[in-house]
Structures are given as C-alpha cells and as structure tokens.
C-alpha cells in the first residue's frame, strides 16, 4: 500500500466526464469509511432538491454512512418550516436511510443550529468526532475566538487517528471572486501543518475546487450543493481541478492510507476524481507543488 500510494495518485480533470448514470469510481473496500461532502445547500430551491436526488441515487451504488455539511445549511429565515423545506424534505430519503449529517456553521447560519439534533453538533459551535481511523475537526470559522483555537490545538495534538480531516465554512484557498480567508489561514494553517491534518474541506464559494497540496495539505472547496456562481473559478497553478458550470457534491472513501474521492454534478456527471495518500505515508511535502514564488501562499 505504501509504495502504491507513495506517489500521490491524482487523476484530475477540469472537464465533465460523461459516464453512465451513477458510475462509481471509488473502490468500496470492506471496512472503509465512506461519506458525503457538500456545502451551501440550504436554499430550499429546485437545484438543492435536484442535487439531493443525485446524492440519493449515488448512495444506492455507494452506500455512505454519514455526511459532512460545510455551512450555510439554512439560508434566509430559520423558522421551523424553513428547516423542513431546506433540510428535512430534500434529504428525507437519506435521513430515513439513517445517514448521519454532521454540520459546520456558515455565515448564513444561526448558531442555534447547534441544538438541531439532525445536525449532530451536540450543542457545540465546534467539535470533533471519529469514524474508523479518521478524526474530523469541525471548526466555526465565523468566529474563531482564542478559546476555539486553544481547543483545536489541544484536540489536534491529542489525536492518534491515522487521518485528520478539518472542515468548516470559509476557504483558506480559493480562486473565486471573494478570495481566500487569509486571516483564518494565518491562524489555522500552522496548526494544520504542525499536527498533520491531511485534508481540509470548505464551502462558502459556490463552486468546486481542488488545490494541489499546500504545505502538504489538500484543500477542497465544495460549496455548490444548491447555489452556483457560474464561471467563478479562475486559472491558477495552485489548482488541481475546478468546476463552476453546475452544482456539485463530493463522495469520499478512506481505506487504509488512501482517500478516494469523486465529485459529481447536479446532473450526475463526474467532474473530478482521484486518490490522496495520507500525509505520513507521502514523500515530504514541498511548500507549493509548482515551486513558483508567485503561487506561494500569501503571508497574511
């Protein structure tokens, strides 16, 4: 396994691959950790329902057991009927199938969402949970107060899990119009590097992006599960893949030292796919894969 994935085996594409419906390119290994990743979904609009239907179709071929939500879970008003229209109804079949949703808070989310049991936040703005050999760190990037940073460092340093995955709303890297959150990056990235975070998932920008490893960490923006900023990704040597022509979500499978992923559009096309090796089994990372100073992370 180690030699097989010693060199990062990414199969990247920026173009939509037309495949038969619900084609699964993930290995579906016994005992693997399988999950759904999506963000910025809670509009209650037609596209959210279409994406949700696609998730359901894929779940039948790729049975995942939980989902991570990258924030902006409920846009606009948050009345009980809004939770129904913008969460429970679109994902009813997944909820009925006992898929566990694990939400992070976005800037459009009332922090009281942490009390909404189906979001599994346990009353906390930030938290950590474990699935198999994977430890997830759910961060509230809207309000990164010193106590949260202290908590994060404590949890990261204590974790013995083979995989460490952080997720939150605001992207530390993005090519989209609003740009990366360089202040958050200045605080979070050193901790991620120091304590061996492998992968970071964020939303906020209504597009899909996958970055070449930055200081050894893979960053994904998966913020287009309902809203879309068409054409809002931009060419960059930092980017490994991007998709901004339709809504999307991501499926992931972690088996041993490998994380396999497949990103799917609202209409079911596969827009990105690949496999990532765990940091500890990869060759030492360089700061930026291109080696160009112009593409180095900006110092905040």
């Amino acid at each position: 396994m180690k030699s097989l994935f010693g060199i990062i085996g990414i199969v990247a594409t920026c173009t939509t691959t037309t495949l038969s419906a619900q084609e699964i390119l993930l290995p579906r290994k016994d005992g693997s950790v399988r999950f759904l990743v999506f963000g910025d979904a809670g509009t209650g609009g037609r596209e959210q329902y279409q994406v949700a239907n696609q998730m359901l179709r894929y779940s039948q071929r790729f049975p995942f057991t939980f989902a991570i939500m990258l924030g902006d879970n409920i846009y606009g008003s948050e009345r009980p009927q809004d939770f129904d229209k913008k969460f429970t109804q679109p994902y009813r079949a997944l909820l009925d199938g006992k898929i566990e949703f694990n939400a992070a808070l976005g800037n459009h989310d009332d922090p009281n969402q942490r009390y909404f049991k189906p979001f599994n936040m346990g009353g906390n703005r930030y938290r950590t949970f474990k699935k198999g050999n994977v430890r997830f760190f759910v961060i509230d990037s809207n309000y990164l107060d010193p106590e949260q940073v202290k908590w994060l460092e404590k949890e990261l340093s204590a974790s013995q899990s083979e995989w460490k995955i952080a997720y939150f709303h605001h992207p530390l890297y993005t090519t989209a119009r609003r740009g990366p959150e360089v202040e958050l990056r200045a605080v979070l990235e050193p901790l991620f590097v120091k304590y061996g975070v492998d992968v970071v998932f964020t939303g906020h920008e209504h597009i899909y992006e996958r970055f070449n490893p930055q200081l050894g960490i893979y960053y994904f923006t998966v913020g287009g599960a309902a809203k879309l900023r068409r054409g809002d990704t931009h060419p960059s040597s930092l980017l490994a893949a991007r998709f901004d022509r339709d809504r999307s979500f991501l499926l992931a499978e972690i088996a041993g030292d490998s994380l396999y992923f497949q990103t799917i559009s609202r209409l079911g096309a596969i827009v990105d796919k690949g496999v990532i090796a765990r940091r500890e089994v990869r060759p030492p990372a360089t700061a930026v894969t291109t080696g160009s100073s112009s593409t180095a992370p900006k110092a905040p």
Partner: protein
Amino acid sequence: MFLSLDFRRAMLALVAGVTLGSGLGCKKSNSPPADPTKPVFDDFAKRVDAYMKLRKQVVDTVGELDPTRSQTEITARASRLAAAIINARPQAKPGDIFTPEVATLIATLIKQEYSRRSEPVQETREDQQDELPDFAPKVNELYPTTYPLATFPAKLLPLLPPLPDALEYRVVQRYLVLRDVEANVIIDYMPNAVPL
C-alpha cells in the same frame, strides 16, 4: 474566562500608546496605577459579569436548551429567552457595557490592528464588506435575521477583551456590536469602532 496572550499584549501596547480621555488618568494622585487600562478593562469585565448574572436568572426561568429534533422548540426557546432578557433590562442603553472609557480603548485597539494589516488581510476585509449587514443596531433589539452574521476578523478577535460563550462581538458597518448568541439580542454597541 480565557484571557488570550494577544489580549494581554494589546493591553500593554495600549498602556504605552494611548492617551486616555477625561476621567481616566486625570485623577491627581501621587501613585497612579501602573497600568491605567486595567481598571477600565476590569470595569468592562464586571459589567459583562453583571449581565451574565442577570442572564442566568433569566435562563433559570426560561430553561436551558438541549439538542432537540424540534426546530419549533429551538425557535420558541430563543424567542422566550430574548423577550425575557429584554424585559429584564428595560432601561438598557448604549454605553452601559461599552462605557466611553472602554470604548475609547477598544476603538484604539481596533484602529491599531487595522493600521498593521497586511495587504492580503486588507483585501480580505474589503471583500467581506459585501457581506456586512447594513443596519443601525439598537440595544435590546434583535439582530435582524435577514442578514448573515458577518465573519469576525480572525486576527482582531484575540485582541479584544474576552467574552463568555454566551456573548460575542460582531461588526456591523462601523459599529462593534455585543450580541447575546442564543437570544440574538443586541446587548450593547459602540459606534465608530471600526475604521473605514
């Protein structure tokens, strides 16, 4: 309450650099306090504590909220809590917690931090302006739910006086707002806190 190292450093910087307004540092005394900002921040902490004591009494009547499947219950509890907090402090007015003295210090801290911003940070914050809610805050009113909660600048937050979990700072245009998180009530605010 977790007192961040950054906040302590920011206080020390203020001691060195701030000219305090009237009522502070104006007492004629042979032994002025070594740190003239300390009593001001201590007073702020006392006012926050007083609010928290009152809040606890309110929560004791309204009840704590545990995770529930019922959004109706969450919404109803937030409304009850907000109403009870507003009723419990009918005379609340701007400056009750952000007194003029602490407001001067906090505004200076923010101004200093803004002046040190790197270009990428400045760009990020300018981009965030798109998201900033555009309303004039009022004490004892709800933070309008029609607006997103603007992300608080991550490098500024550790410089401000710490707050208990139940409270948070938010930037609304040039205002710094003190918000009760669960009740969504504006507890106090200070105008002209954030530089243009």
